[in-house]
């Protein structure tokens, strides 16, 4: 390395006050154009249907000023830090600590989850939130098989969730089958629909695949709405039986679990039971997925994501490989759906909109495609964070959106972007996310 040339380096690093102001002015101008109608003028329909509008120029001015100031701050920060890189921000000593922390995070998280009903026994809100988070963790892990491992972009995952939920709801209300009989049936039915979806989309790749899966999700929802005689249409299915503790109901009656154990009945028992039930289901999903990754089928999924042509050249039947990925992912979605039905006691098509698919997909992408721990953390962040920002009231979505954008700048390939090898000779070393492919369908 020769002595640094101060002139040009300094110039490129610090483009000067004029540059910063120019940039800030442009940003402010864009903000002005964008927000002049969105914020500057407020319109509403009057009582007789006429248009009422009034101006909010003070809000608009505040917004533009914020953008102007913010742009200067961001530019200054960028010059202060130089090119963004985690190495620059985090000192090496702390990085070693992070490595240790990263190893410990999964077991700590698992133990904490087991203890949640004990710690928060009296707080119904926390327990309900925990159940919700775990449901999304399970859905995320299920979709991870399809999107993260096999690299098939599925925008209609909620369809399988719906199939599972309606399978249990209809089988139990019409035929009186118990939850534990219906759970595998719901999984099998969802897997069956996964294969049905898989067949027509086998030839599609990338964007085309995404659109067809999106349509599939909508078709299932519309069929549920319109097939009134079977599904009850928009009214949904109500009176779905609550889960039993392997046949023993969790009710205050004499044959209830509380009476048999000789303890006082509390409605929290059922919540705690549901919590451990979804935890068990989620852990089953996790265990099976981790197992499958180390089996030839799982390796074929990942190989398919990396290079489909090479897979075919190696004699891998890409058709069945894709179908098994769809079926496996759908099966877990079906399990989660059955759980959702028994928890709610009532289901309607409103619970299975595209927004749910998008949320689960966001969890998988945010977590880092293919990473089990990443998906769990992302579900916690997305669902938990959403609740955390409840205090911000009407700005909740805004704050949440900003948080997401920041997270994606900091971690463009998801929370846990690297990939762990499925087999190793000497030592297992993580593979950088720059090498792995996202798959193109």
């Amino acid at each position, binding site marked *: 390395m020769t002595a640094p040339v101060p002139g040009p380096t300094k110039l490129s690093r610090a483009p000067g006050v004029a540059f910063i102001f120019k940039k800030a002015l442009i940003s402010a101008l864009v903000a002005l154009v964008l927000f002049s109608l969105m914020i500057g003028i407020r319109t509403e329909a009057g009582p007789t249907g006429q248009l009422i509008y009034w101006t909010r120029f003070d809000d608009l001015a505040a917004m533009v000023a914020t953008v102007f100031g913010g742009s200067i701050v961001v530019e200054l920060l960028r010059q202060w830090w130089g090119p963004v890189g985690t190495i620059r921000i985090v000192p090496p000593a702390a990085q070693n600590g992070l490595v240790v922390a990263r190893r410990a995070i999964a077991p700590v998280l698992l133990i904490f989850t087991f203890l949640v009903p004990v710690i928060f026994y009296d707080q119904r809100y926390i327990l309900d939130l925990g159940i919700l988070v775990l449901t999304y963790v399970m859905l995320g892990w299920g979709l991870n098989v399809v999107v993260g491992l096999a690299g098939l972009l599925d925008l209609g995952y909620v369809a399988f969730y719906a199939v599972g939920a309606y399978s249990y709801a209809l089988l139990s209300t019409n035929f009186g089958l118990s939850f534990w009989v219906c759970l595998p049936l719901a999984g099998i039915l969802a897997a069956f629909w996964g294969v049905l979806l898989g067949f027509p989309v086998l030839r599609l790749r990338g964007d085309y695949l995404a659109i067809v899966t999106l349509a599939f999700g909508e078709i299932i929802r519309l069929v549920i709405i319109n097939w009134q005689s079977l599904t009850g249409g928009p009214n949904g299915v109500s009176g779905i039986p609550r889960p039993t503790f392997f046949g023993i109901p969790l009710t205050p009656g004499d044959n209830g679990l509380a009476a048999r154990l000789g303890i006082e009945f509390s409605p929290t028992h059922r919540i705690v039971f549901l919590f451990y039930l979804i935890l068990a289901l989620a852990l089953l999903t996790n265990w099976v997925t981790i197992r499958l990754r180390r089996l030839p089928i799982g390796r074929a999924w990942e*190989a398919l994501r*990396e290079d489909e042509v090479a897979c075919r050249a190696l004699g891998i039947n890409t058709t069945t490989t894709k179908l098994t990925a769809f079926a496996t992912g759908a099966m877990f979605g079906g399990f989660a759906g059955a759980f959702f039905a028994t928890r709610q006691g009532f289901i309607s098509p409103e619970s299975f909109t595209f927004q749910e698919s998008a949320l689960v997909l966001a969890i998988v992408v945010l977590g880092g495609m293919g990473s089990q721990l990443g998906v769990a953390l992302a579900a916690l962040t997305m669902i938990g964070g959403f609740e955390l920002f409840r205090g911000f009231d009407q700005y909740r979505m805004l704050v949440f959106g900003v948080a997401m954008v920041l997270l994606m700048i900091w971690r463009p390939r998801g929370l846990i972007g690297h990939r762990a090898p499925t087999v*190793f000779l000497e030592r297992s070393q993580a593979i950088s996310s720059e090498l792995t492919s996202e798959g193109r369908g």
Partner: protein
Amino acid sequence: MSGKNILNVDHLSMRFGGVVAVNDLSFTAERRKITALIGPNGAGKTTVFNCITGFYKPTSGAMRLTHDDGRAIQLERLNDFRISKLAKVARTFQNIRLFPGMTALENLMVAQHNALMRASGLTFLGLIGAPSWRAAEKHAIDQATRWLGRIGLLERADDAAGNLPYGDQRRLEIARAMCTEPALLCLDEPAAGLNARESAALSELLLSIRGDHGTSILLIEHDMSVVMEISDHIVVMDYGVKIAEGAPQDIRDNPRVIAAYLGADEEEAIAVMESGT
């Protein structure tokens, strides 16, 4: 005859719209020999490969693969993955197609997919961790390790394939193809981008594959030092047709071949040769 030739290509033609990429090509590849397919750029060599390995469906013609036990398979009737699975034809690609995000060892494990799939009882035995599956997995890792040792990549077994140097990636792709235990190995320009030392190592590797495993090799190559050194038989193509065939020495002196490579008329080439000698 079926005992001698592993591959018989008869009157193979491949048309893309109005373009005739391969026109009425016939040649044979002998068992346990290295057959090279050479020719100028755009001669249709890779198209022939894609037909043999099932990536293209030929417009007309037949390709018969005869195994050691006399079992004959018409390749034009099988599609893509079945050619590798049933006919035991493996290939590599002109632009390397490894799984870059998987380790070198994993790449070789994926290549043993079909054998491992059977051993894992279509996943179910593997899911419960049956002893027979564990043994099969260990065997597969041993086989992969052996190949990594042979191509000198044992130390880098746990590195991502995409992180390996170019020459190592080329060798790893060949090892991956060999892990499918093929009867016929099709290599599309394996020496492209290699330096002289790496080319020599490649020649050695290919000769040992032929010698130790009895695998027949079909080779597309532009590097004439490699072709002339290791080929038993050479087929020369130009504009989709075969223009010459024979032992390396015959091909080296063939005026039509020289003309094709120089882009000159046959007469001119003969004139050049005569004036040179």
